[in-house]
């Protein structure tokens, strides 16, 4: 009787303390890991943010602060002058319009076409599929410089995939269109799956489709859905995060594109090319300044322009990353 009582009392005494001890250890572990994570991320942020903070700090800095050794990060004299000057030289509005006019349709076309092609590679068996797929990878590897001249000629005398040349047999002269200085080269290459880094997106989407369960498609097939209908109605609404990722990459690489834009545009350049031209134009403008003054004046303006190039995409990413959530299909099937 007494023994049992003592046991119970001991139990009461021991058990809660045992529980709270474990809890405390758990909490300590959690705190320790979040502190470690914080320190690690802090260090990484320094590595990654350093150039951007440098840009930011210099873009808003008045020239006088550049010479002031007490000014390290935070300027004493804030100014928007650098942006105004950069805008005067390159004209942000027209070049931005150029970029957007090229980018938005290209991205939409490219993402859709890449998904279609990737679906074909992921789900259907046909002769030579693996060989053709390795060709897709090859298109990512070979840079545009390798074929810069033939591609230029191709769009300078665009003959609609040889149709113009066939028509030429009747009219005596090949029917060609000059597509330089228009957005059409970008649209056409995106629509035919060889746009800027299209191969990579095909690869990404194919890996994704291969990881998706087949049950949904089989169900659609049993219900009499054709493959195109299945793709549009079942696969497209369920691609989820991969669509966001591909679109994001596509936007970034169109936005930043340099070589293709230099090749296909003659005078009105998009933003990324305009910024590189800025340096040369600035040195022309400031010819009769001393070299030190020139470098000083230039670097701030350049940094302001760089900031304008980087900021919109960063904002876009902050909004887009919210949609990195579990894709519906997987949860729907597995659960």
């Amino acid at each position, binding site marked *: 009787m007494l023994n049992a009582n003592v046991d119970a009392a001991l139990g009461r005494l021991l058990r809660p303390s045992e529980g709270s001890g474990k809890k405390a250890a758990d909490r300590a572990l959690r705190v320790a890991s979040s502190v470690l*994570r914080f320190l690690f*991320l802090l260090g*990484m*942020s320094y590595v*990654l*943010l350093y150039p*951007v903070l*440098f840009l930011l700090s210099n873009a808003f800095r008045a020239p006088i602060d550049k010479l002031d050794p007490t000014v390290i990060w935070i300027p004493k004299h804030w100014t928007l002058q650098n942006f105004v000057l950069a805008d005067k030289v390159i004209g942000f509005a027209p070049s931005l319009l150029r970029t957007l006019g090229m980018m938005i349709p290209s991205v939409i076309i490219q993402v859709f076409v890449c998904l279609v*092609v990737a679906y*074909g590679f992921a*789900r*259907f068996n*046909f*002769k030579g*599929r693996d060989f*053709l797929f390795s060709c897709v*990878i*090859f298109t*990512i*590897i*070979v840079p545009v*410089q*390798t*074929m810069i*001249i*033939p*591609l230029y000629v*191709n769009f300078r005398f665009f003959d609609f995939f040889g149709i113009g040349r066939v028509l030429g047999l009747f009219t005596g002269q090949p029917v060609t269109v000059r597509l330089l200085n228009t957005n059409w080269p970008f649209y*056409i290459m995106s629509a*035919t*799956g*060889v746009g800027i880094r299209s191969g*990579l997106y095909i*690869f990404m989407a194919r*890996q*994704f489709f*291969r*990881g998706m369960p*087949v049950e949904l498609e089989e169900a659609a097939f049993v219900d009499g859905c054709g*493959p195109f209908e299945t793709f549009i109605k079942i696969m497209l609404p369920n691609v989820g*995060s991969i669509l966001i990722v591909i679109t*994001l*990459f596509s936007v*970034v690489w169109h*936005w*930043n594109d340099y070589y293709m834009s230099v090749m296909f545009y003659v005078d009105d350049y998009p933003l990324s*090319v305009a*910024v*590189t031209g800025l*340096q040369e134009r600035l040195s022309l403008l400031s010819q009769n300044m001393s070299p030190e003054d020139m470098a000083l004046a230039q*670097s701030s303006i350049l940094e302001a322009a760089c900031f304008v*190039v980087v900021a919109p995409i960063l904002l876009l*990413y*902050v909004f887009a*990353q*919210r949609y*990195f959530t*579990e894709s519906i299909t*997987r949860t729907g099937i*597995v659960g």
Partner: protein
Amino acid sequence: MKKASAGRKRSGLVARRAMYGRLFILPWLIGFVFFFCIPLGTSFYYTLTRINITEAGLEFQWAGFENYLYAFTTDPDFTRNIVESVLNIVYQVPIIIFFSLFIANILKGDFKGRTLMRAIFFLPVIISSGVVIAILKENVLISGTGQEASLFQTGGLTSVLVDSGFGLPFVKVITDSIAKVFDLTWRSGVQILLLLSALHSVPESMYEAAKIEGATAWESFWKITFALISPTLVLAVIYSIIDYFTDYSNKVMRMIVLNVTQGRFEYSTTISILYFLAVMLIISAVYGLLSKKAYYAVN
């Protein structure tokens, strides 16, 4: 009788599926032929010529395999740079992949300031793919330290490691990777994003089930996370290789660009064709090895 007709039906279905597959990839096939094969073929023809710029325009003079011979026998940099690139990639790619997976795992977790951290780790994708990086390298990294950015000094470490009996090549690999932490983080942006989205697509219910079955976090990482994201890991490995080889700071790529700007288009194309054939060989070997190990819902 019945069996035969079923067989025919089946083969008809297979043929029809094959046709649909070809239809799906048709847009790409058109682009591949017109904007890749034909231009590349034309470029290949240029490599067999010598291009003279005359008043009438470009003049192509047949030269046979002269450019190729030059690349292998006369050019002092070509073979050396290619071998160096290939050797570098052997240790660079695993480091990039481990690093990206680590970061993606951290960024996946729920903590305060996650959005901000994700934005920060996306910075390299935005910056290093564009012209901004060139300007930054000129203005920021060089003006800041007077030399190419190396945030960590590794002189002390080298002597410690050599003293403790490690071979010099091994030590060099380690110190190189430490000195390149900056470079590394700037190269991992795309891979981190890929892996992050893959990690998010692993259903939470699987972890719950594993936890109930008594799996530790370590086990559930390898058996669930790792297995389910393996297709993306393959993708990330291939991307890292491609990115490393086609990056403009790569020595062979610099040779290619330099020769174009010097007007030696035919030689630049010769280098790039040889180079990208070599890269393609490496990538197919790696892809062949890895995709057997990767887990796919359907094969």
